[in-house]
């Protein structure tokens, strides 16, 4: 309203400390709203449990014990968190560009398959470390191409990236099935169609003193690296401009298409890496066990973390814990395994609704903003 210039340079007096305070005030919004959303979905889920005649208090205490109560449950949680970190990154990176990619599961499946397939001719003569490096590389390339295609389709042909990535998940599953039930099937395993095992001597070991494989550590490091890429590089800044306002990015002459394809490729490589670790550290071969839903839970993780790579780590551990407690809940409370999925679904719904509250609550606004 009062849009005049009688007080020139009024803002200059606000020095460094003021800027810092401002940033703190602004970021508190991104902590409080997700936390409230968590609490609210907990309340909703309690209502659901009441309706089933079960005690919410008992449920949550089982979740605590099953996910975080003992060192055994912590390790179980962390093993589940590792792939979630990677698949959440597959959502978080394109989200900076305003793209909603929900087909990370497809990149995970193909990444796992590619790393298992490329290992087959090397089994027996190639030493473990270079073989794992080649497998990881193959997994990342497969994932990068898969999700990179989604970005390219979006930019060059205007295909909706959400639908495309979801549908491409089904294609990825078909490709996996085609090979493990056909050309690459290991004839010595009559039960479950799988590729030939890479051999236990070639598999990735655990972090000493735990049952948790190295994938967790790689995931944490990757989150740090990608946080820097998105926040401290010109690439990340350009991606943020393009995600915030495509027209503004075009007016700045930014290569919007390249930004989209590259971000999607990075995202796909992350999910592909998840597939690689599932093969190289857990299953030892590629089969339908790769389709475990990590790609889809990763969507929830990323949204809950507001697509911030650093926040993804604790959120992935949190959701990994909920998943890990599923067994305990099932045994002790006589509830089906899917109960924790209901909790996840509720959580996702509430998180999506909570997105609409950003910028609406006046306590997070600075008083000086001239409206």
């Amino acid at each position, binding site marked *: 309203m009062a*849009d005049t210039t009688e007080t020139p340079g009024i*803002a*200059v007096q606000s020095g460094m400390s003021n800027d810092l305070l401002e940033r703190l005030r602004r970021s508190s919004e991104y902590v409080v709203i997700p936390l409230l959303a968590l609490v609210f979905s907990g309340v909703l889920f309690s209502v659901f449990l009441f309706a089933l005649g079960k005690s919410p208090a008992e449920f949550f205490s089982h979740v605590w014990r099953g996910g975080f109560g003992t060192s055994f449950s912590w390790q179980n949680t962390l093993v589940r968190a590792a792939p979630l970190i990677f698949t959440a990154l597959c959502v978080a990176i394109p989200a900076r560009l305003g793209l909603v990619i929900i087909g990370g599961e497809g990149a995970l499946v193909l990444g796992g398959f590619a790393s298992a397939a490329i290992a087959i001719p090397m089994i027996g003569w190639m030493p473990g470390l270079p073989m794992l490096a080649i497998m990881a590389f193959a997994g990342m390339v497969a994932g990068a191409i898969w999700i990179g295609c989604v970005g390219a389709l979006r930019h060059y042909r205007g295909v909706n990236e959400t639908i495309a990535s979801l549908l491409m998940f089904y294609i990825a599953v078909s490709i996996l099935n085609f090979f493990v039930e056909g050309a690459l099937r290991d004839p010595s395993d009559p039960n479950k169609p799988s590729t030939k095992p890479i051999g236990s001597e070639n598999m990735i070991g655990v972090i000493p003193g735990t049952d948790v494989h190295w994938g967790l550590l790689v995931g944490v490091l990757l989150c740090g690296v990608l946080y820097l890429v998105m926040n401290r590089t010109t690439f990340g800044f*350009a991606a*943020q*401009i393009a995600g915030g306002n495509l027209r503004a990015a075009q*007016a700045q002459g930014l290569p919007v298409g390249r930004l989209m394809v590259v971000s999607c490729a990075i995202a796909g490589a992350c999910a592909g890496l998840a597939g690689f670790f599932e093969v190289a550290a857990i299953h030892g071969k590629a089969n339908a066990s790769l389709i475990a839903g990590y790609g889809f839970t990763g969507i929830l993780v990323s949204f809950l973390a507001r697509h911030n790579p650093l926040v993804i780590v604790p959120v992935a551990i949190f959701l990994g814990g909920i998943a890990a407690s599923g067994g305990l809940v099932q045994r002790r409370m006589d509830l089906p395994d899917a109960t924790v999925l209901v909790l996840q679904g509720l959580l996702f719904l509430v998180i999506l609704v909570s997105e609409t509250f950003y910028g609406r609550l006046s306590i997070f606004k*600075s008083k*000086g903003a001239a409206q």
Partner: protein
Amino acid sequence: MSVALETGSGSRAIGVETVGMTKAFGNLVALDDVSIRVTPGSFHALLGENGAGKSTLVKCMMGFYQPTSGAMLVNGEEADVPNPRAAHAHGIGMVYQHFTLVPSLTAAENLVIARTDAPRVIDWKAERRALSAFLETTPFKVPLDVPVSGLSAGEKQKLEILKQLYLDQRFLILDEPTSVLTPDEADEVLGLLRAMTEAGDLTILMITHKFREVTAYADDVTVLRRGRVVGSGRVRDLSVEDMSRMMIGETEIRESAERTAHQQAALKLELAGLFADDDEELPAIEAISLKVHAGEILGIAGVSGNGQSELIEVLSGQRMLKDGRIFIGKEPYEPERGQMDAFKVFGFSEEPLKNVAVPRMSVAENMAFRTFDKAPISPFRGWLSPPPMRRQARDLIAAYRVKTPSTEEPIENLSGGNVQRAILARELSGDVDILIVANPCFGLDFASVAEIRAQIMDQRNRGAAILLVSEDLDEILELADTVAVMSEGRITYQSPMAETDRATIGHAMAGHH
């Protein structure tokens, strides 16, 4: 009140009065004790800058808002207007800035469906007869059987007014009714309305910021500033200077920059036969060829929607060029980052939050769009360092007098004038060779408008080649050295400013050339 007494003599017009109307939104008082009186059969102008409270006032009168306190009198009697339907029942109607007609229906259909008492099954024969009889009573002539999408802007605006008359609204509120019309269309519509008020058939309250329309057509004027009435009276007793002083208040307005003379400047920007499609893949601009020299402002005038926005989009890389070439100093130019920097091409446009800024990013970040990939913000390739970015922002905020609580404020929280000033700071603080500007002052207050125009003139005097697209003819007349008119996607007229005048340009805008 005396208003009722003045309505005699078979006059059908009604008078409306507000008494001490106040409207607060939270802490913000948008209207503060506003009393205006519009006598029956008068043509009343409501003047004020953006944000002065004009729209809030008429929205209270129409029942879109409930005033915090104050009352409204219709023909001297207190009227309760809880919603727009109640306003209509009192005979108060409004014509909006943008059309509210259904484009796929004909004029006749639009009129009949607008009636609140339209029957379930419409007897079109009878309706047609009634419509024809009704049209006989008004001076407005509009083809009835053509879909509205086929009508010109002037005809649509007439139809909007006809619709209100057809609904028997005898007090019309017009919200900047001429903003989408050519000067000739505007004169025709306002002239007809003026005649109806003189005949006592109609009362008009017109929101405007064009003094020309006030002095030519209005009887009375009320001026609002920051939600208060700061002046009112008979138009014939007031000069344009009086009215503009009331509107602006004590705010200092920057003098318009002097135009320095250049001689035989070099050719800078050349558009050679540009073709592009609109979003529906229909031709939007065709064979646009223009030349802009160093130190020249080429002003492109035209009624909104004749391909100007598509032309700007093509030049700024937001739309694909189908055919043709852009040259800068004889070298081919593509609107991509490397060449923008090499050729020093800059630009800004109306509604910066929609076109050239990222609303949720901070002021500092938005100010760094041109410089984030260069030292000092990017000390080495690919890396980005926030401290120099904030330093740059603090310097620019001071130099361009941007009012913001801090460098970290999301730019969407700033007022319109300050957003535009922040963008100006980004685009004009470097070394500018080519400047591409579209409606830079749209929706801004006087102080910002004067500031922005002076900045554009400064750049011209420094030797930049400037392409200015504007739907505001006054802006073109004030700034341009050369004027071109765009109509239906083509350049239909071009002349040095010294050899043309408002009327000639106006005719060209209407497609007469």
